């Protein structure tokens, strides 16, 4: 009978594979999981050395119950992603206790595939994927090992074969990845990968953004299709804040406006403002793709005025994009921004009321209100008021700093007339306040400004320290116009970024120390640029490859996206690859290459065997081959003998040279024979 035992030369590979596959989960998970794997390996290695018996059914069952129990204690349940994965990994290692037969090893290997897959649910970086590929290689090695039942097989031979097979499989995988149509989820299963990071909140009170600015974490990346706008133009709008209570700015929608009408979702009813926006002449725009890190919020970042090209989001009336769900994992969307479109959206009555609203308490910003009304009286147009205000910021001794003094009583007046030291939020807040006091509709916008280009790719990197706040004012005929009072105080902030704006500023320098940036030169900087580049491409091409980008790519590659052409391309590409492998595999002569003379003989040998329909002995001499031909095809006897004589002379008579001329002659004779053999 066949013995389906796991051969000894594969045991070590199984151990390595089990450890390698569970490692990512063990690092994430609880200590007891790692303990379990160690326990299993110790028991198994003792049993393999015949020190103890392999645990029987009872002990294995006990262990299983124990594992379920601990899982329940740890997670409070035994289902759900975290608990489920913990159970799977434990089962995976426990199964190794009973691996004796080939079938058990098959089960372990299949469990290994699932463990690898779960690792990818929680971490999607290129590094993790490379690691999982390595695990797959090990699993393939095990599969080869358990099927190699020769006891003398060499373990390293399995890896070599596994590497060869994997190298051949990867191109096929790429073809499948690119061409297999992405289907919409059959049912929704989102996993919270726990990547909540720092980011913008939906309100702005003093000190909030300056705190954000101390983080160098990535906020999002932008890849432009074509021209990149000037640095001073890169204002990534996230939120508009219209309600001020004297300390905090908050999001608000005008009284009496339906939320449905305020936010246009694709497929929903189209509000009037959106129709007129779409009807407007757009002018030129910037096309770009944004890959956003998870924020757990719904708003997306874009320049003014964004028109969504690819991705899922609605457009709000304040010209910003809103996603339908909180962004819990990296997401990409493509947008074209038309700066000139901002005039298309009008200011309705209810809007105006909101945009002019100030805190009821007249004591809040009393002096500021006075100053603003003064400017209003002095100026003929709203634009003049804006100019006066900016001049005020520029000419008075305002100071740009990350560490402003606290403003305990009245954040507006204290800042404007006493401390005069502040961060962008202070400037945006007080400026907007004063504009409203001067009767100009205004709002605060928070988002990011700037972004560093990666020299390797054409993308920008926007980090948390690029967080910024500025104002927008409504000017008759122009619509909403961006005004950045920070630029009046510290123009370097806008042109060169935060670091430039704060350098040479003693009290902020220790904060800057902690900020990483591409600005750091040398090898480390280069390395960072590379990592970022790879990460970005990974996000764009691998993680962000969805049905939309797939259709776009296929349209470019195939010219059509009909199911038929995709199917044909899929079939063709795979056939081509497999055919190529077949050629390589079946041609693999081990080491020895035939000389032309030897080929000459074997070609005729093969042809005769084919024509007579029966195999020929390989031990035929040229003469005997000629005799075989003569016996079956008497007509070919003469040239056959002539060929054999020539061949024999060339190969065995040292006095006769087997030069090119002779080989040519032999080939001619052979071709003549071919014809005679029919």
């Amino acid at each position, binding site marked *: 009978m066949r013995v389906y035992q796991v051969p000894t030369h594969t045991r070590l590979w199984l151990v390595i594979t089990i450890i390698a596959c569970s490692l990512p989960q063990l690092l994430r998970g609880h200590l007891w999981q790692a303990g379990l794997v160690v326990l299993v390996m110790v028991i198994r290695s003792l049993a393999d050395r015949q020190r103890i018996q392999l645990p029987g059914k009872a002990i294995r069952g006990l262990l299983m119950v124990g594992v379920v129990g601990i899982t329940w204690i740890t997670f409070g349940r035994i289902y759900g992603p975290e608990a489920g994965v913990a159970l799977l990994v434990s089962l995976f290692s426990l199964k190794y206790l009973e691996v004796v037969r080939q079938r058990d090893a098959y089960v372990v290997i299949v469990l290994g595939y699932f463990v690898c897959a779960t690792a990818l649910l929680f971490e999607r970086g290129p590094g993790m994927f490379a690691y999982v590929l390595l695990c797959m290689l090990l699993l393939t090695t095990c599969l080869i090992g358990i099927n190699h039942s020769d006891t003398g097989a060499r373990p390293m031979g399995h890896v070599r074969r596994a590497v060869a097979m994997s190298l051949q499989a990867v191109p096929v995988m790429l073809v499948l990845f690119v061409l297999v149509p992405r289907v919409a989820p059959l049912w929704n299963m989102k996993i919270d990968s726990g990547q909540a990071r720092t980011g913008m909140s939906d309100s702005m009170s003093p000190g909030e953004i300056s705190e954000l600015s101390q983080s160098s974490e990535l906020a999002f990346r932008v890849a432009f299709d074509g021209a990149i706008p000037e640095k001073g133009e890169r204002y990534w709008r996230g939120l508009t804040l219209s309600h001020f209570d004297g300390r905090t700015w908050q999001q608000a929608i005008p009284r009496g406006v339906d939320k449905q009408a305020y936010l246009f979702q694709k497929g929903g009813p189209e509000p009037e403002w959106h129709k007129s926006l779409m009807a407007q002449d757009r002018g030129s725009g910037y096309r770009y793709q944004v890959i956003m890190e998870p924020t757990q919020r719904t708003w997306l970042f874009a320049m003014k005025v964004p028109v969504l090209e690819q991705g899922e989001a609605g457009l709000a009336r304040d010209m910003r994009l809103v996603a339908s769900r909180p962004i819990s994992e990296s997401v990409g969307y493509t947008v074209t921004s038309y700066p000139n479109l901002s005039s298309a959206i009008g200011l309705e009555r209810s809007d105006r009321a909101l945009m002019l609203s100030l805190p009821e308490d007249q004591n809040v910003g009393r002096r500021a209100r006075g100053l603003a009304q003064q400017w209003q009286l002095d100026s003929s147009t709203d634009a003049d008021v804006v100019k006066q205000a900016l001049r005020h910021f520029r000419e008075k001794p305002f100071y740009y700093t990350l560490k402003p003094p606290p403003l305990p009583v009245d954040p507006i007046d204290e800042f404007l007339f006493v401390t005069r030291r502040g961060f962008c939020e202070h400037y945006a807040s007080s400026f907007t306040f004063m504009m409203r006091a001067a009767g100009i509709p205004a709002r605060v916008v928070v988002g990011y400004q700037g972004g560093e280009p990666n020299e390797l790719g054409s993308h920008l990197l926007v980090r948390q320290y690029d967080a910024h706040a500025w104002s927008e004012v409504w000017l008759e005929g122009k619509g909403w116009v961006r005004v950045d009072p920070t630029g009046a105080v510290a123009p370097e902030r806008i042109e060169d970024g935060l670091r430039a704006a704060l350098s040479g500023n003693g009290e902020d320098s220790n904060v800057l120390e902690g900020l990483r940036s591409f600005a750091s030169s040398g090898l480390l900087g280069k390395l960072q640029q590379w990592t970022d580049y790879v990460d970005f491409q990974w996000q764009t091409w691998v993680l962000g490859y969805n049905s939309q980008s797939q259709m776009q790519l296929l349209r470019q590659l195939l010219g059509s996206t009909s199911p038929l052409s995709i199917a044909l391309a899929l079939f063709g590409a795979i056939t081509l690859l497999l055919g190529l492998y077949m050629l390589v595999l079946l041609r693999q002569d081990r080491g020895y290459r035939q000389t032309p003379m030897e080929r000459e003989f*074997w070609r005729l040998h093969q042809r005769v065997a084919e024509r007579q329909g029966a195999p020929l002995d390989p*031990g035929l001499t040229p003469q005997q081959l000629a005799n075989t031909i003569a016996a079956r095809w008497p007509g070919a006897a003469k040239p056959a003998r002539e060929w054999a004589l020539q061949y024999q002379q060339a190969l065995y008579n*040292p006095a006769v040279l087997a030069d090119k001329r002779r080989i040519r002659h032999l080939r001619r004779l052979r071709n003549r024979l071919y014809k005679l053999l029919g």
Partner: protein
Amino acid sequence: MQALTKALGEVAKVVLGKEDQLKLALTCLMANGHLLIEDLPGMGKTTLAHALARVFQLEYRRVQFTSDMLPADILGVSVFNPNTQDFTLREGPVFTQLLLADEINRATPKTQGALLEAMEERQVTLDGVTRPLPRPFFVVATQNPSDQAGTFVLPESQLDRFLMRISLGYPAPEVELALLAGGDLREQARSLKPVISSDGLVKLSGMVDKVRASHELLDYVQRLMDATRTDDRFVAGLSPRAGLGLLKAARAWALISGRDYAVPEDIQAVWAAVAEHRLSARQGGSVSAMTQSLLQSVPVVRR
């Protein structure tokens, strides 16, 4: 060359219808090797040896081996002469140019060993005195098929000393008829005309070494050798000595065939005679068929 053809013709007069075996026997002589003939009694072994001796003008002796024979019976012995009252050395039959060792498998291994050693060394040491054997020196040994009762099968190491083993077999019917009509062939063998002198034979065997063998041919021989070693139907593969013997025999065959270079057909012609007796089958079955199957399966031209 013509002399060789003529010699063959002469011998064929008394050994009827066995041209191939005759040619092999001649090849063996030319290649300076010893010949083993395996046959039932009465097949013409003696006649063949005798005829060869006549045609090449070789001094010829015949020894009938029996189980009570001692090494001294072959090599020689000091005999006390009662008339002269001293010991005289009586040279054994081995001191000759062509020795017919009849039914060698009837002798004890010790006696067989003495002869085989002499064959290998081409000299004999008696009472501390080493005496060279004449040149040329050939042994034509015969043995009845080894499964007969009361015999000592030659061990493989000894068989290796015979360059070739041939078997004459029963004559074809028409030949047998001629044989019956022709009278005693052994008598006729005595009347054969000498064709080549024994010195001529030495010269001819010198020419064998000049027959050229191309690299491809050597490669073929090597592959054949290798095939016997990897084929586990055989107890053991052929020794390097067998390989050299095969090549030498093939060269001699080429010379007899009138070529100054050897071709694979030469190898194949002598293959069975050179290889069969050195191989033994692991699990029964015909060694001859297995040896022959190697010729079919080992590619002549490397692939």
